[in-house]
């Protein structure tokens, strides 16, 4: 039995490139992912889906090479593996099939990626309202196509999904976009830098052209989202655009306000985080190599700030090179030389972010909802409940949580942390990063009890 050099958590773009890079230089790597297959959300099931779904596009298909590269000596992959705790040391506690394992390695790389930003508005918990990215996951994993759906919100992903739906013959009913001409104008000052990422910009323009050519109705600058259930089970979606209230009935309302870092695992591991004002999200604090303030733990990819797949691939390689250096497998010079191309790629990929962040910023009413809008889906806590706790003296996320139970359900705040933060900020507070604790995913008492006599494994 040999000691593991590196455990990578998350087999998305960052985790996959890091694994391949580390293994190429002789490191022994264990790659853990909660899903059934490697790929991450962006390349969900890409290794399985063949040409039957050409509408998913070339960028998606490009993920196949990353998955294929994992078939290399030195890489062990465990899928269906839910990591629920990471300790300094470092050691990783993960569960599969009802059994938890404690595995130690010299380094741990957290590549937990992103999740869609929760988009609270009246009616967002109704059957028939889903995140747009969730519908895209269904397209990738099951070939299910949204029926007569309305896409509502903003961000590059909405255009991509609309284009994929058009190509698949499942045209969206309408696009209801929250970005306003004023937001685009404000974002324009970031365009010169974004030109470094010209291919990405052109891709985006191509998607919009496709939507236009398909004759899909577009509403711009929409606000005041609300959803109600109709008699036949459809969603009656209301919004305001150009000074008028509009209503569209649809079986499926797909919302999107960008993606945010998945930070439960890094927060629970004790890694320092920071607030990214432009992206309106918490992110793990790292140095340019992905190093965190916790010894032995790196973070790469969207978990350290949203950059997208290309940035994540570069960040995964950079973290792997630094870890290889720390393992004594690369000299400092070799690390730095090899890293130069990845640094340039990372810079190019990140160049477009300031423009995207400004142009497609989430609506203030989504960041800080009011009234009866559910904030915490698990515990069914409303914005009014959060406001009441503030009136009774709560000053920060912890007091709001203990006073209202927001964030105490099984999702542990993944669907409400940012909304609570938004409401606190809206009320003049400067909220701290909410604390996360293990187990970051629910684990059965029997499974936990079995760990009283656990043996650490090193496959």
């Amino acid at each position: 039995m040999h000691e593991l050099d590196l455990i990578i958590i998350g087999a998305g773009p960052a985790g996959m490139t890091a694994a391949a890079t580390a293994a190429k230089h002789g490191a022994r790597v264990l790659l853990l992912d909660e899903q059934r297959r490697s790929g991450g959300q962006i390349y969900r099931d890409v290794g399985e889906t063949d040409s039957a779904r050409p509408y998913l596009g070339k960028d998606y298909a490009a993920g196949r090479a990353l998955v294929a590269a994992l078939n290399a000596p030195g890489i062990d992959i465990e899928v269906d593996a839910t990591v629920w705790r990471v300790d300094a040391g470092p050691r990783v506690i993960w569960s599969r099939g009802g059994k938890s394992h404690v595995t130690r390695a010299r380094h741990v790389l957290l590549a937990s990626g992103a999740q869609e930003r929760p988009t609270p508005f009246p009616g967002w918990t109704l059957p028939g309202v889903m995140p747009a990215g969730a519908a895209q996951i269904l397209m990738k994993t099951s070939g299910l196509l949204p029926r007569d759906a309305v896409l509502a919100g903003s961000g590059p992903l909405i255009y991509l999904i609309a284009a994929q739906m058009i190509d698949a013959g499942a045209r969206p009913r309408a696009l209801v976009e929250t970005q306003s001409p004023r937001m685009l104008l404000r974002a324009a000052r970031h365009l010169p830098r974004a030109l470094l990422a010209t291919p990405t910009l052109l891709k985006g323009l191509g998607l919009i052209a496709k939507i236009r050519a398909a004759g899909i109705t577009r509403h711009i600058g929409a606000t005041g989202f609300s959803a109600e259930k109709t008699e036949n089970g459809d969603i009656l979606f209301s919004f305001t655009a150009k000074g008028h209230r509009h209503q569209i009935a649809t079986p499926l309302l797909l919302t999107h306000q960008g993606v945010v870092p998945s930070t439960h695992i890094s927060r629970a591991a004790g890694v320092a985080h920071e607030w990214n004002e432009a992206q309106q999200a918490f992110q793990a604090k790292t140095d340019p190599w992905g190093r965190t303030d916790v010894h032995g733990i790196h973070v790469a990819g969207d978990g350290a700030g949203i950059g997208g797949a290309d940035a994540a691939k570069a960040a995964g390689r950079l973290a792997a090179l630094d870890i290889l250096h720390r393992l004594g497998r690369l000299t400092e010079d070799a690390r730095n030389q090899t890293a130069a191309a990845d640094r340039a790629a990372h810079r190019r990929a990140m160049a477009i972010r300031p423009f995207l962040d400004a142009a497609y910023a989430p609506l203030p009413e989504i960041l800080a909802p009011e009234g009866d809008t559910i904030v915490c889906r698990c515990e069914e806590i409303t914005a009014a409940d959060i406001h009441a706790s503030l009136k009774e003296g709560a000053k920060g996320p912890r007091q709001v949580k203990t006073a209202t139970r927001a964030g105490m359900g099984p999702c542990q705040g993944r669907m409400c942390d940012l909304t609570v933060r938004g409401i606190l900020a809206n009320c003049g507070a400067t909220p701290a990063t909410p604390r996360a604790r293990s187990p970051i995913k629910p684990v059965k008492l029997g499974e936990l009890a079995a760990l009283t006599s656990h043996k650490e494994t090193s496959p």
Partner: protein
Amino acid sequence: MKIASRFLTPPEPAATIQLTLDGEPVTARAGDTVAAALLAHSGDASRLTARGAPRTAFCMMGVCFDCLVEVDGRPNCQGCMVQVRDGMVLRRQRGPRKLMGGAQDA
């Protein structure tokens, strides 16, 4: 009233399996997750919350826990993280799970 699926059935040919939902037979595509199979089957709620509010699978990536469903007598399974299997017995949950699993009160 039965609410039609909010999704179009994929045109691709696929192997199917049989499962039951609250005792009713349901045909599902082999390889799908439970959450996907339920969304393909019906547009109706796949569970009721503690306060009785209807929910269906939401994030499809294991984050939100809205897709909780009883699978083969095991309550509170994340439907989006479990694959369907021929003969699987699914039950919609109404409110919190029971200690011993088993069928929910209607």
